[in-house]
């Protein structure tokens, strides 16, 4: 039982880039796309190879961008962004958990260590969020769909190792095949089968059957003729991007697996402690590993189906089909009164003459492709079954063939004004994700915050409150009703010597944007200590006004 790793990676990416959801990791740190925004803004593109378009959610199911996002070079560069530890850990988790299945060069033990380290970490994290008041698993944690996928995949890995080891087929341990990419590939090929039907990107079931025959023919003929002819593409297919796949000769024994898992647990706890996520093991539980009850979550799965369909590009015709039915039904109703007064097996198809080719001289049987019908004048005629079906189907569910439109590349974003380069604090009208601002805190002192995300503070549903843009006005535009904007920040207090100290938050939340005082230049990092880049009094100058 495996869930597709590539889908999992993309889903984690989607959650990570979700506009207004807060994913706190410990009291100090937040997993946020704001750090990535900061990185893109302030570091040259050559270093991290990311573009601002990665932050938009236009092309949700893009695997390449997910891969780029959690690349090691991004994590290395993020180290220079203050307060981004949680984001780095999250990206590391994405990368290592998925590469444990996709990277062909790893051996079984490495895979197990990676998968379980991050699985345990996610469990600890999940437990912590569940236990903390004010956070909920549905909004502050990865989706339950992704979490369940991670659990399933980790277990599948162990099950597979044990199964193949006991069957003495060590060399068949090929985890990169544990995916549903074959299906995706099949659909892709069918949609873009070149070139006889290259303009037809949509198909019906029958057309898909024909296409399948072609793919079948090709794959079988290729292997049949491989001795006589050369098919260069076929050879390339097996070269995993020039990487030599690791073929295991001996899969680990049970006690070895156990050791690996225990080690992984230690690693995970280490990671978690760094974020002050400490979960005390319950004495009741028999298990020495943190156990997560899954059952409670499953009720959410249904809801999650819906959620997933949101970004499944394929899910838009379901409504049309019901419309179709009403069409069929009306057809039936109008037909009912006329059907009764003709002979049993003959059908009146239309009023007036039929206008279709009459195959009078063809003998009919139930399996021949022709049927007899009566036209409106009472005359019997023999027509093709396919014509009859064409006649009966009133409206086809057509989906637009320009599928490409739906996954269009995001429009080129123009570079934002480099206000940050300004060395002095100043006041502005619009706040940007990733920049540093001074806010007046509740006890009227000054707090420094780097904005990570915005959200509406009022709204009837959660979805209503989502604010997806990366810039927000301090004052609500005049023509619009004031809904109240809040910003999620990495918070710092200013100490006497101008150093910035990270604030420990019991619950991360959105802070009203009206408390904005001024924009400050990007703080300087010196030996992991953040230094306020300008004298405090300059900020206080704005505070009075």
């Amino acid at each position, binding site marked *: 039982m*495996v869930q597709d790793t590539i889908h999992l990676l993309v889903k984690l990416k989607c959650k990570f880039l979700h506009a207004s959801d807060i994913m706190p990791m410990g009291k100090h740190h937040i997993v946020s796309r704001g750090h990535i925004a900061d990185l893109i803004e302030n570091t040259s593109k050559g270093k991290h190879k990311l573009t601002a378009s990665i932050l938009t959610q236009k092309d949700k199911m893009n695997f390449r961008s997910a891969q780029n996002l959690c690349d090691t070079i991004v994590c290395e560069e993020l180290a220079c962004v203050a307060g981004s530890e949680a984001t780095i850990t999250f990206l590391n988790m994405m990368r290592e958990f998925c590469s444990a299945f996709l990277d062909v060069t790893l051996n079984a033990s490495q895979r197990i260590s990676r998968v379980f380290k991050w699985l345990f970490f996610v469990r600890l994290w999940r437990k912590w969020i569940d236990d903390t008041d004010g956070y909920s698993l549905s909004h502050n944690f990865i989706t339950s769909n992704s979490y369940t996928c991670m659990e399933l995949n980790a277990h599948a890995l162990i099950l597979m190792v044990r199964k193949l080891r006991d069957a003495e087929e060590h060399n068949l341990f090929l985890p990169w095949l544990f995916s549903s990419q074959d299906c995706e590939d099949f659909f892709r090929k069918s949609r873009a089968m070149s070139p006889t039907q290259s303009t037809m990107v949509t198909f019906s079931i029958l057309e898909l059957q024909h296409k399948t025959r072609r793919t079948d023919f090709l794959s079988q003929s290729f292997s*049949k003729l491989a001795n006589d002819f050369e098919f260069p593409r076929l050879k390339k297919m097996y070269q995993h991007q020039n990487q030599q796949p690791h073929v295991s000769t001996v899969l680990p024994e049970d006690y070895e697996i156990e050791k690996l898992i225990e080690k992984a647990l230690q690693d995970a706890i280490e990671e978690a402690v760094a974020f002050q996520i400490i979960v005390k093991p319950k004495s009741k539980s028999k298990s020495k*590993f943190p156990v997560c009850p*899954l059952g409670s979550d499953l009720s959410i799965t249904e809801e999650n189906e819906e959620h997933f369909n949101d970004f499944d590009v394929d899910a838009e015709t*379901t409504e049309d089909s019901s419309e179709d039915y009403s069409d069929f039904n009306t057809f039936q109703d109008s037909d009912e009164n006329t059907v009764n007064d003709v002979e049993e097996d003959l059908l009146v198809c239309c009023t007036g003459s039929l206008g279709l080719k009459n195959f009078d001289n063809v003998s009919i049987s139930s399996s021949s492709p022709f049927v007899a019908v009566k036209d409106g004048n009472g005359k019997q005629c023999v027509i093709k079954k396919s014509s009859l079906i064409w006649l009966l189907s009133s409206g086809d569910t057509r989906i637009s063939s320009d599928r490409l439109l739906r996954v269009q590349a995001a429009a080129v974003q123009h570079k934002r004004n480099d206000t940050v380069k300004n060395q002095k604090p100043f006041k502005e009208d619009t706040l940007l994700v990733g920049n540093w601002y001074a806010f007046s805190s509740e006890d009227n002192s000054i707090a420094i915050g780097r904005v990570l995300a915005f959200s509406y503070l009022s709204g009837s549903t959660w979805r209503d409150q989502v604010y997806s843009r990366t810039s927000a006005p301090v004052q609500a535009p005049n023509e619009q009703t004031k809904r109240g904007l809040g910003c999620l920040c990495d918070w710092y207090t200013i100490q006497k010597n101008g150093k910035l100290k990270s604030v420990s938050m019991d619950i991360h939340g959105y802070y009203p944007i009206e408390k904005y005082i001024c924009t400050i230049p990007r703080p300087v990092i010196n030996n992991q200590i953040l230094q306020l880049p300008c004298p405090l009094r300059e900020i206080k100058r704005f505070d009075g006004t």
Partner: protein
Amino acid sequence: MPTGFSVRGEVYTSSPPLQIEKKKRDWSLYSRTNRSQNKLKEASSSCHCIEEYFPVLNKLNLVLEENKRLKERLLGALRRVPESNGHFSPDGSNLLNIILECAQKNAGKKRKGWRYNDTLKEFCTIVFTLGGPQVYEILSRNLLLPAIPTCSRILYKHESIQEGVFRFKELKRIMTEKGYPTNKVILSEDGTVVTGRIQYDPKTNQVVGFCLPLQNGVPVQNSFPATSAKVIESYFCEGIVSTNAYVTMARPLASNSTPFCVALFGTNNRFSHHDVLSRWEWMNKEATKENIEIVAHSSDGDGKLLKAMVSKPFLPTHQGNGHGFKPHWMFLQK
């Protein structure tokens, strides 16, 4: 000192000694011998005839006979040209050989009466399927390949997949044909949107495009036979148009394996995880009949399949310890 000689218009000269050229202006061009040679050259430029060369060849042979070393060197060079013995050589000459063979066999026949061997026909069908009719038409006309209808016929003769049929037998056959070292496969399933078009399939005499009814989660094949006009009409009243094509692919556990489409059927995505579970159970049974072992089912995180995977005996739980997991290995708790 050798001078030029001519054989019926073709002139052979030996090069004049280099020293003379250097001394002074080159009058040798206008010497008597050269003048006559030039005349001969001009005269020969207008007449080329193949038999004119045979005397040259004879002469060459004479030279070769006289110069044994030259002969040996030429023969040595010839030996380095690879012999084509009709077998596959990496530069793809096999195709040309087959075409040549066919052309020789069919020589003298009308173009329509040509017959081709099966390998060539199959190869051409591959080219036709991949390249499309326009490309293939050009190739077939110019390379003396089978015509398009031949390729279409071969393609049409190839076994087709029928909606709702699980092709484990074919899977087994292909696995044996390709010589995979295992009988273990991974099944993956997923759906994609299709146009809700209803069509008639003359090959199976079925109306295709309605959702097949599920029996224990397994689609019932041949549910919509097109027997008469009345019956067809009734389908339109009662049938549910499928909006999704649901596909099950099998991937043998081998690094060089290719995926195989085990089943495809139309659905409106209204089935529960119970359907999924009973379908898996049925599929496992069917596969075992063909001596195929399904080691895992895989999906893309679809809620129904996820629920099916979590809910059932696939995972080690406290209760069912069927997987031989040690107690403290049990991570999931229901």
